[in-house]
């Protein structure tokens, strides 16, 4: 069994975010990391691999991003994944979800996969659309937002927690699966894992390797375009209610109602 996990390298949310002159997110000049939500996808893949009785299951991590994005692969390998594939090409810059999913789908096809695992959303773009687009492009079932996954041969059963109900869904491989932050507890890389990762193979591939023309991806091909951005205004001082005559609670409720919180 082969499991391909799509992992995204995202700017560290605790560091300052920057934008480029073309209104794209600066993914090069900032501190980046493996998207935290993708750690759940990696962990789920490792659990499926380790529970596989054939013993020949393997986990390949796939990322698309600038050279630094290799760090996302490395962290996944340190957690225990077997090998990595890095789509890296200058032409990728500015790709939207349509372009991103095209490249990821081509790379998955090139690998061949029984299960493609994704996070529930990236922590930067957070559109949650890549898994669905990938499934569509690959022509396989999509099972998204799984909070619990069981694999039994070719059958994958998931629990999907909704606001109103909990669904149990079954699908057969090959498929695309995305998992939530409720699905497992991602492991921390051990020293053994960190040392082992040094020896694991990471393949770098370009658009040419995937047979994709530069014009089909990148900023020019994007269906969406960021026209402008503005920094979040600094937090204002807020309102302080002093309870002088016993009406403080009413004033609080009025404030919340005015802000449409209640």
């Amino acid at each position: 069994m082969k499991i391909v996990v799509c992992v995204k390298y995202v700017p560290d949310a605790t560091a300052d975010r920057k934008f480029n002159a073309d209104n794209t997110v600066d993914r090069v000049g900032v501190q980046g990391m493996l998207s935290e939500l993708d750690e759940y996808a990696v962990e789920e893949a490792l659990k499926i691999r380790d529970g596989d009785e054939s013993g020949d299951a393997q986990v390949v991590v796939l990322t698309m991003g600038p050279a630094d994005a290799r760090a996302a692969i490395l962290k996944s390998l340190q957690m225990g994944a077997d090998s990595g594939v890095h789509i890296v090409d200058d032409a990728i810059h500015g790709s939207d979800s349509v372009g991103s999913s095209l490249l990821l789908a081509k790379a998955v096809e090139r690998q061949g996969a029984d299960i493609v695992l994704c996070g529930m959303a990236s922590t930067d773009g957070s559109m949650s659309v890549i898994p669905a687009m990938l499934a569509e492009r690959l022509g396989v079932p999509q099972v998204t937002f799984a909070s619990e996954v069981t694999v039994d041969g070719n059958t994958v059963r998931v629990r999907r927690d909704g606001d109103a109900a909990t669904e149990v869904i079954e699908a057969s491989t090959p498929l695309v699966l995305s998992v939530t932050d409720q699905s497992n507890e991602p492991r921390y890389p051990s020293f053994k894992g960190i040392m082992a990762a040094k020896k694991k193979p990471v393949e770098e591939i370009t658009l040419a390797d995937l047979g994709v023309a530069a014009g089909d991806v990148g900023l020019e091909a994007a269906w969406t375009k960021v026209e402008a951005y503005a920094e979040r205004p600094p937090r204002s001082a807020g309102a302080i209610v002093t309870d002088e005559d016993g009406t403080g609670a009413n004033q609080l409720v009025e404030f919340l109602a005015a802000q449409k919180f209640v």
Partner: protein
Amino acid sequence: MNFVLSPEHEAFRASVREFAEAEIAPHATEWDRKHHFPVDVVRKMGALGLFGLAAPEEFGGAGEDGDFTSLCVAIEEIGRVDQSMGITLEAAVGLGINPILTYGTDEQKQTWLPDLVAGSALAGFGLTEPGAGSDAGATATKAELVDGQWRINGSKQFITNSGSDITSLVTVTARTGQREDGRAEVSTLIIPSGTAGFVVEPAYDKLGWHASDTHPLTFTDVLVPESNLLGARGRGFAQFLAILDDGRVAIAALAVGCIQACLDLSVQYAGERTTFKVPIGAKQGVAFQIADLQVMAEAARVLTYKAAALKDAGRPMAEFKQAAAIAKLYATEAAVTATRIATQVFGGYGFMEEYPVARFYRDAKVLEIGEGTSEVQRMLIARGLGLPVE
């Protein structure tokens, strides 16, 4: 010469820090207040491989990949958020696993190490007695060989990890006879938890390290098989001296974590707390003290990792021993000073248990005492210099 850790050690530091921030830091204050020893966290540290960093793969350790340096990194990072869990790790490896790994027979290793390395069991090391601390050779606990069994009588005190729910054994030093020169023959014995006559007395009420498990132990006609002798008979004294050399560097790493915590907490607080309309960090009187904290953190770190590197490089024992004593002495005394400075930076809040600096202040003192007091370190260093010190 190389003064930086490898990228792998740095990646491991990041991993342990993430673990410590998520699994330990949020609970440290409560465990301290309740004197609670969190067994589940010990298991999680085991899952992360922290107990096996210097153990062979056959017992579940990191094998060739692991080293003493990585253990120091782990102790420093755990100690940065919680000294109690830091000492738990330090003692579990340095005093629990190390004697068995170093002196155990294949059978003893097979029996005890897998669970200890996995973090599903802990071992204590009983050297100190009411009448034998710095003067550990004054051991009064006795063991006699009777019909193929050791019969042990005596007591130990201040023994870390000796009475937790998952403690599987303690190794103890005991007099097993007299040497030709008239001095006591001291040997080391393995006493499994639950052996009849082996009583773990109630935990101490300590100044600090509240979440660490420390007990007095008594032995009344405790019987263990002859094969529970650890290492050669009569080598007990030499064995624990060697064990303590490693332990000293590990305690120094714990002290580095303490100093780093003081530094991090002070930098943050001095930027936030305002007096006379400016952050207190704008006052040289405060800022300069915090600058000193970084000097202490860096100096202690360099001494500690130098000693660890000497061990990993297999350098001569005399060189390592000296470096270990120097690192322990400087790092632990700096840690006590650092906690005094940090509580001062926090003003009245530093005296409140709500703030972690108060906990570090209480926790630091014992660093100058355990695994050889500062006076003992000075004695060792002076002897290493060839001085005729008593």
